[in-house]
């Protein structure tokens, strides 16, 4: 078969790139190894034993970042929807109540109105008011989307502007754990992207969870005539004179195209092309304990949407030394997105930084035991944050770095990809492009925008 472009992976970036190219008459085929789409942000279901109900779970979704109201101008979310020709109302976004950065003795709240965070900083760190304003001004004037940018340490920039190290740690924590492929620190470009998308724009959740987004992307791709194949992994990227000419799939089929866009990750992709690459496998991976509870918490019991909890003054963002690192956790309560319906089960998702090698080495029963241990610790944190909320768990589910590896084929279950990003998407092979996580834009909105931009650049503009 001959196509104009082949896309590896039906995650956020792959589907978005596919839609853009198909929209303008390109013959595009998206190949996905898994049985369903979504990649790192997919969905699954489990049966609740006692009631026999089927419960729907999202793999990842805590929050859709980059909240914008309908018609709000020059916002990444608005841009993304426009480029994909998806109406704002189709995602039925429910905004967060508020989120909390919870450190020993200090808390900062933020919501979808940046004024709240500003006021919290003014109130809790009064000596930092001017410096914080200076930081905000720097962020507002920064061109974080420069595709040729090189790595700048965020900690260095922050320490040169702010004086209080606790404030630096608190501001960094959510941004690191929601999108840094680097340990301990992050690229300042990425910091600015995340600062805007999390603190200035904020969180929402599509009604129905991530599936609402995935189903819409698939529908758009098919409407535009795109071809999507599941259970169809790419085994090798075919080259001729160092130029991509197509792929061979796990079904043994050879498909041809002058352009191949890959969302499989940089080291993973170069391995498929049988090329050496100097890209480290990312160390940052996570585990998550999910509890479905008998009932949702009331507002007075627990009303935050997401809590970034840290038990020390310093935030240790690094690959966990032990199986998981319970000194910090992200606790998400999806019920605390604005919703009318307070009936039905409640849900808590608790994320810990975790260690891939340690989990990989366990035998089945030790693995199950470890998961159990993480679950208990996670629920201990929920109880501490919501002491009034008495809950009974009706279903629990725990995933680990090996789960991530098994369903997404990311080396070491890495979630934010390689620390070596390729901002312009170009590899050493002509016609082979990296999209999504390892191009450097991540999260749901980031990955979708990555697919759109690179699909535009190499699939539509340069291909003329």
């Amino acid at each position, binding site marked *: 078969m001959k196509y104009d472009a082949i896309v590896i992976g039906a995650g956020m970036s792959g589907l978005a790139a596919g839609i853009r190219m198909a929209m303008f008459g390109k013959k595009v085929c998206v190949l996905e190894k898994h049985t369903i789409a979504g990649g790192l942000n997919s969905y699954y279901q489990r049966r609740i034993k006692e009631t026999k109900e089927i419960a729907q779970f999202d793999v990842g979704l805590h929050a859709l970042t980059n909240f914008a109201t309908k018609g709000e101008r*020059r916002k990444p979310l608005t*841009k993304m929807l426009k480029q994909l020709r998806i109406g704002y109302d189709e995602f039925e976004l429910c905004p967060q109540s508020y989120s909390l950065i919870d450190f020993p003795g200090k808390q900062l709240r933020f919501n979808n109105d940046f004024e709240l965070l500003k006021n919290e900083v003014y109130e809790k760190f009064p000596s930092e008011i001017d410096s914080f304003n200076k930081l905000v001004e720097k962020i507002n004037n920064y061109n974080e989307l420069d595709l040729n940018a090189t790595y700048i340490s965020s900690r260095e920039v922050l320490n040169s502007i702010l004086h209080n190290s606790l404030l630096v740690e608190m501001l960094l924590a959510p941004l690191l754990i929601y999108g840094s492929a680097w340990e301990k620190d992050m690229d300042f470009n990425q910091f600015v992207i995340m600062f805007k998308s999390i603190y200035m724009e904020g969180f929402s959740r599509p009604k129905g969870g991530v599936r609402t987004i995935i189903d819409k992307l698939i529908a758009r791709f098919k409407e535009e005539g795109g071809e999507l194949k599941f259970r169809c992994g790419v085994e090798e990227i075919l080259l001729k004179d160092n130029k991509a000419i197509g792929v061979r799939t796990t079904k043994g089929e050879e498909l041809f195209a002058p352009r191949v866009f890959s969302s499989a990750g940089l080291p993973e992709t170069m391995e498929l092309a049988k090329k050496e690459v100097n890209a480290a496998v990312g160390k940052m991976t996570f585990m998550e304990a999910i509890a479905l509870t008998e009932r949702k918490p009331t507002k007075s019991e627990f009303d935050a949407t997401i809590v970034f909890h840290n038990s020390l003054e310093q935030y240790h963002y690094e690959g966990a030394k032990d199986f998981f690192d319970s000194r910090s956790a992200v606790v998400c309560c999806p019920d605390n997105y604005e919703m009318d319906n307070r009936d039905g089960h409640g849900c808590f998702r608790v994320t810990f930084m975790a260690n891939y090698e340690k989990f990989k080495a366990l035998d089945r029963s030790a693995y199950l035991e470890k998961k159990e241990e993480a679950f208990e610790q996670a629920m201990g944190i929920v109880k501490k944050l919501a002491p009034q909320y008495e809950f009974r768990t009706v279903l629990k589910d725990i995933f680990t770095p090996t789960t991530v590896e098994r369903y997404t084929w990311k080396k070491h279950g890495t979630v934010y990809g390689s620390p070596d990003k390729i901002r312009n998407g170009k590899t050493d092979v002509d016609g082979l492009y990296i999209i999504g996580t390892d191009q450097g834009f991540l999260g749901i909105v980031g990955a979708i925008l990555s697919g759109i931009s690179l699909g535009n650049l190499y699939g539509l*503009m340069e291909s003329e």
Partner: protein
Amino acid sequence: MSAEEVKKVVLDIIADVAPDEEVSDINPAESLRDQLDLDSMDFLDIVMELRKRHSVEVPSEDYPKLATLNSCVEYLTPKM
């Protein structure tokens, strides 16, 4: 195509590319970018739609000629 028809073509495309914009209020002499929330990505879409729907090619050096509704009509009418 008459100038009036070309104008309608352009407005239809803008309405599809930027569905949240009110195209009936556009001042034809004023820059489209200033009146509407259009960025370079959207201009790419307008150009791509012109090709898809009407087989008109707009080379990138001519993008400035699409600045206002009037200039669009003036530039595109001989081509359509």
